[in-house]
């Protein structure tokens, strides 16, 4: 267990990203990030600092301009298009600010979607497992409801279960509570922490909510295209009032 815990599931070295367009926009100037198995990391930073850009690269949705990105020990620049699809399917799970559930599918169908994409349809065991997760997050009574008949918090909880469906190594969550009121947001966050420790999945969560950020194992700050851990003072500022 200790050997597994020390393993790096994310490792970036000198990761740079410049959006090429009419005007090249440099966003990330050299990010060195290491996330261990089972760790819950939060990333904060000002709007436009490049948090989503980083997450997209970590989830193989986008490619870095420069630098090394290793996900679960694999240098993703060596992967083919299909290899990247496998990575997105089995190694990484995504939770976005908007839930991005499919309107045409029920809560349960949405939650098993990554399994259906990988293997056509879930096995009975897989269905049972996903159902148990949905029950755990309080959606036991909503299994066959469609997203447009469920609340924002319910949909986001369903999206979290979807991110866990293929038992990934890492879940990348980009402002998962951004669209929720603070109470619901906290619930969703607690759920992610629970899942993280229970199933042993690493979480990298981007958030604007300092309280939630501080509840993580580690807080990282993106500033001026670089990433650093919060200093003791910065942490203290946040913690003292409570």
């Amino acid at each position: 267990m200790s050997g597994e815990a020390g393993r790096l599931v994310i490792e970036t070295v000198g990761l740079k990203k410049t959006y090429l367009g009419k005007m090249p926009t440099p966003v990330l100037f050299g990010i060195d990030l290491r996330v261990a198995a089972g760790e819950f990391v939060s990333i904060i930073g000002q709007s436009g600092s490049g948090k989503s850009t980083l997450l997209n690269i970590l989830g193989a949705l986008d490619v870095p301009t420069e630098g090394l990105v290793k996900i679960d020990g694999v240098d993703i620049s060596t992967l083919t298009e299909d290899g990247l699809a496998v990575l997105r399917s089995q190694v990484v799970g995504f939770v976005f600010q908007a839930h991005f559930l499919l309107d045409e599918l029920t809560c349960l169908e949405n939650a098993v979607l990554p399994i259906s994409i990988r293997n056509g349809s879930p096995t009975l065991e897989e269905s049972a497992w996903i159902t148990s997760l949905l029950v755990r997050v309080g959606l036991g009574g909503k299994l066959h409801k469609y997203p447009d008949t469920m609340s924002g918090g319910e949909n986001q909880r369903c999206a979290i279960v979807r991110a866990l469906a293929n038992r990934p190594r890492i879940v990348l969550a980009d402002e998962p509570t951004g669209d929720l009121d603070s109470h619901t947001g906290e619930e969703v966050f607690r759920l992610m922490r629970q899942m993280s420790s229970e199933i042993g999945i690493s979480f990298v969560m981007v958030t604007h909510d300092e309280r939630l950020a501080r509840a993580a194992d580690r807080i990282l700050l993106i500033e001026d295209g670089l990433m650093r851990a919060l200093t003791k003072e910065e942490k203290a500022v946040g913690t003292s009032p409570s």
Partner: protein
Amino acid sequence: MTIYSLLPRQVRFESQLAWRHLRSGGGQTWLTIAAVASGVIIVIFIMGLIFGLQRRLTALLTDAIPHVTVQVPEGKPIPYADLPGRLPGTSSSRSEIQAPQRKNIDDWRTVLAVAGTIPNVRAVTPAVAGQGFASKGANPVGVSLIGADPMEQELITPVTKNLIGGHYDGLLADEVVIDFELAKDLNVGVGDRIRITSISGVPEPLRVAGVYSKGQGRGSAYVTLRTGQSMLGIGNSVNVVYVKVFDIYAADAVAERLSALLECEAKSWSSEFPNFVTSLQAQSASAYLISGFTLIASSFAIASVLIVSVQRKAKQIGTLKSIGARSRQILLIFLLEGLGIAIAGSVMGAIAGIAIVSLLSLPKQAVARGGGLPESLFPLILDPVYILAAMGAATTATVLAALLPARSAAKLNPVDAMR
């Protein structure tokens, strides 16, 4: 569990999502299905009309003529130098026609036997045909003469149903059935006696047993086979065998088959009416063209609806990719959607097309032709081959139309799509 578990894994989730898309598409889905169905309806109608018209015209033409005529080839002009029995040493640029008259088919029973083995053959009638002059008193009038058994000849060129008076069935050896024009020229009627002088030169006294009218043009004079044989002086032989087939469009094949099997020359009706055949082909070509353009037009309509639907689903496509869907799977989802529309549209189009054509076939012509039942007003036909072809072509066109939006969906970049 679900019906999707019956499908192979490679298309299971894709089929499920495609079906959900179609279901949630509602009116838009029905619109595209209607576009495919309209295409199929138009194609079935056009094909039914054009080919129905062709069948009626062809039937009108070929009902009254032999479909295949078997004869011994006419002698080709032979250069004098090659003429058998020419005087040695003499030479001439003159050509001789070897035989002035149709040669006889002495082994016509073989022809009958061989023709009987060809599946498409409906009736085979041995006959003698030749030219002659008919007269009553003075003025002789040219006439073409056919000698055959009335029952058998009836199967080749219907006479009885065109009779104005008298009979053809049970024709006696000294009787003849002539057409109305000849009767008028000779000023004779049923029961009168006329003379027909054939090429052999012997005048034959015959009693008019019946007068018929084809409605247009001059017809032949019909005598029994024996009388014909004796008038043309060819003994027990015949000089022509008439063949009637079931499928007149396959008459060429029957003619070819007979020519190959026999030392005779077999000509099909189509080689006697090349212009008719050409105009049929032009008609068919225009039917295919109209059908093709119809399908192209409905494909454009479908493609444009699907392009918009893909654009509206950009976020979903991005989501699917972000949770592991490959481009191939996205392509398949939208192709299957196209296939669903195509199949639903062609099935509904076929049903509606068949219904419309059947309904339009109900009204009958006011006047019946040739004593039969009145034919339907619109000469529409329903040929399963064309219906299946229309469905197949519409399905293909629709799937091709879906290919363009499906490919653009597959190529979507997830980050851009989800922004």
